[in-house]
């Protein structure tokens, strides 16, 4: 059984940051259609800063909780907008979940998804169907908390969660935004993907991919 360590956390965030940098323009375009086009910048810069901070702090003898808290603080202070507080709350919840552990067994990784979902839900007061990042996080969290029967190994569970998130993001196309900046557009928001849901699905895909590589390598 492999484990997930503080240095794995840095590695994971590096992967998050690379993906957000790659998706920067796409997310900006999606956001431009119904918002203000800043989502790509916020996600790319925020995760880059978090990854860098995690790498710099890695020598210190940190717990996973410390790592997630650090990432949360950096995102909060770097990003602003709604993305900052929401992902910061998500990571603080993950920090609480993994607490003082220095490493966890690999099969606890899916807990990170439900913890992050709860953090976002609590901070943003959003509901599924509002056309927000929650529409990707919610189905993903649901998969890992409810749907354990046919997926026993961790990688499959993460993969299923990522797929649920991707589908959830796609489903935002038919939704009318009722929270956030796009809500002012009302009916005109229909027909567009929600950029927050798209970036959330990308993060979850990165997590699944990262876990696949990690499991293969160890």
């Amino acid at each position, binding site marked *: 059984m492999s484990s997930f360590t503080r240095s794995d956390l840095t590695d994971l965030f590096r992967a998050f940051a690379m993906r957000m940098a790659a998706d920067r323009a796409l997310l900006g375009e999606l956001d431009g259609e119904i918002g203000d086009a*800043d989502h790509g910048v916020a996600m790319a810069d925020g995760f880059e800063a978090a990854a860098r901070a995690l790498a710099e702090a890695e020598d210190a003898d940190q717990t996973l909780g410390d790592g997630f808290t650090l990432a949360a603080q950096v995102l909060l202070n770097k990003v*602003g907008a709604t993305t900052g507080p929401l992902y910061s709350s998500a990571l603080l919840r993950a920090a609480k979940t993994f607490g003082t552990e220095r490493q966890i067994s690999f099969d606890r990784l899916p807990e990170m998804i439900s913890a992050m979902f709860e953090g976002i839900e609590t901070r943003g007061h959003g509901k599924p*169907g509002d056309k927000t990042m929650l529409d990707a996080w919610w189905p993903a969290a649901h998969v890992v908390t409810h749907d354990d029967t046919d997926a026993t190994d961790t990688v499959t569970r993460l993969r299923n969660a990522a797929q649920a998130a991707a*589908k959830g993001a796609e489903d935002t196309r038919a939704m009318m935004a009722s929270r956030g900046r796009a809500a002012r557009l009302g009916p005109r928001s229909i027909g567009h993907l929600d950029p927050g849901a798209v970036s959330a699905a990308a993060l979850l895909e990165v997590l699944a991919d990262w876990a696949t590589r990690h499991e293969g390598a160890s």
Partner: protein
Amino acid sequence: MGARGRTRDAAAPSDKRPPTRFGEDTLLWAAWLYYEEGLTQAEIATRMGVSRPSVNAYLADARTRDIVSIEIDPARFRALTLAQAMQDHFGLNDCLVIPSEGNDSPLIDRLGAAAAQLLGRLTKSGETISVTWGRTMLAMATRVSNGALRDVRVVQATGSTTAKIPWTPEACATRLAENLGARCIPLSAPAIVSAPQVRDMLLREPVLAEQMAVLAQADRIVFGVSSLRPESTIHTSGFFDAVSIRDHYHAAVGSIAGRMISATGARVDGPLEERTIGMDLDTIRKVPERLAVAGGMDKVQAILAALRGGYVTALVTDADTARAILNSEGYEDRPMRGPERPTEALPERTRVKKFLNRPRDAVDEAIAGALLAHEDRLVAVDGVPRAIRARQAPRPGKVGLVIGGGSGHEPGFLGYVGQGMADAVAVGNVFAAPPPDPILAATIAADGGAGVLHIFGNFSGDLMNFEMAAEMAEAKGIPVRTVVTTDDIASAPLDARSARRGVAGNVFVFKIAGAACNRMLSLDRCADLASRAAERCMTMGVALEPGASIDTGRPSFSLGPDAMEIGVGVHGEPGVTRTEVKSADETADLIVDRILDEIDLANGTEVALLVNSLGSTPQMELYILNRRLRRRLHAHDISVHVTLLGHYYTSLDMVGVSVTLMQLDPELKELLDDPCDSPAWTQI
């Protein structure tokens, strides 16, 4: 998707009735065939089974009477195009799309009326019709009429629901049967029972078994589509009183006859499935004719799911809903074909030249430059690059005023820091709220021991970050009060004022609050005055061209060569509606009309006026607009005490204007006249 192909041209030559989507409107049908399908008059004559001179007369009539859209009634034409697209895309036999606006009756009633007409026409003697429940179904049932039918049976598609609502399954079925002169067959059981065993027992009861057997013979089902939003029929019907949607129906987006479906229309199983009495989804799909009646933006996802799942053979909806459904499927709204009016498109801006180094350094470099340009007034807060304070701040015993928001609104926000204005500002990334850190640093820098007032525009990011910063400041013993501006009248109706954006009205609110703080009033008093100023500000913005992102250099949304966006946000986000470009006077009228609609003359007839460039509109045009604005205000006996005109609250390089009016009373007027000295507003 089923019956694709049985579309518009499927009518046999002997069937000379207009296809459903034209209603009974022969002229509309003829005009459609001629203008839209390009048939000759002779071909139309064959198709309609009339003589060629008749076709000629129809077309002449259609041109002279207000019936068809191209030259006549756009709403109907739109609806037709949409109905056609819906039919083609989803393989429907029939689709009736009613205009979304029109008369004053609610959408549900109008959908019901349209469905009633259609159902009355489609139903044949000897049919068994199954019907679900809900507002739309009842609206339809009360309006339907056809006295010529014989041996029609109407049967409830499900058992009964809670009696708390008037549109129960029994009510819908009974009323429909009455108005069709049909026999009503109820289902003598609840729609939801407490346990699967109860259902099985009930289904063995001879009475119910007989009723269910009739249901199984349905030739036609008429159903509404419910969303699963908290306000939806399925909730008020009591379906989820004992079952958590969250645990069991997370994949569901809508429901038909009390059965849950996913975004693709697949059945979503849950604990209710085994406890529901009525038609199930598989049985519904086997009914030969399946008419769905539903509309409204909140239902788009649910209706789309029903269409994708193949539950629908005929649909009655409204134009906005149809368009939204098609947009969700990637269909581009076709521009109206009409009398050809070629317009020379202006070359669209795809890339914009800007004075930048690395885009990501833009905000920090702009702040550095601003500090140098205004070094007599502004100072950086030590160690926090995105917090800036006034050189004189803090002043002991004075309430500190902290403002802030995203960059890209220059001279907003740092232009309003200085003597008699804000004490400190927190600056975010372009169009993004600042994080709590700089807001907290600005709060500490502004604190003179009498508390701090936060003022910012109503955006979810600003709310979250300022709220967090205020909590941190309170924890450090600094009392904070917050005033959120909501002056953008285009962004939400008056009864939802708290949902409105805060835009250029900020400028006046900052000034009033700054003067109040400067007079050493208490924190509560300053906050109350700022609130009053905020309530009395009304702003309306119009854009001719979008601004361009500094990150990509591309326009932030696209606006056609002849289009103008009304009610634009200040973050490059699209506005509320779009219209063709108007002249300066027409534009000023459009803005002032909207503002005058909301003016409460009890709040005074003296105003402060801000004619604000959104970035790329020059002063010359602002002056032209101002001339008309003043004339219109004068005609309403509204006098202008102060005019600000120029770049006060921009949206990068958007081409456009916003107009703000603040209604004054003696107290606000005095505060407005107080001296101040800040980079963007100085008066002695």
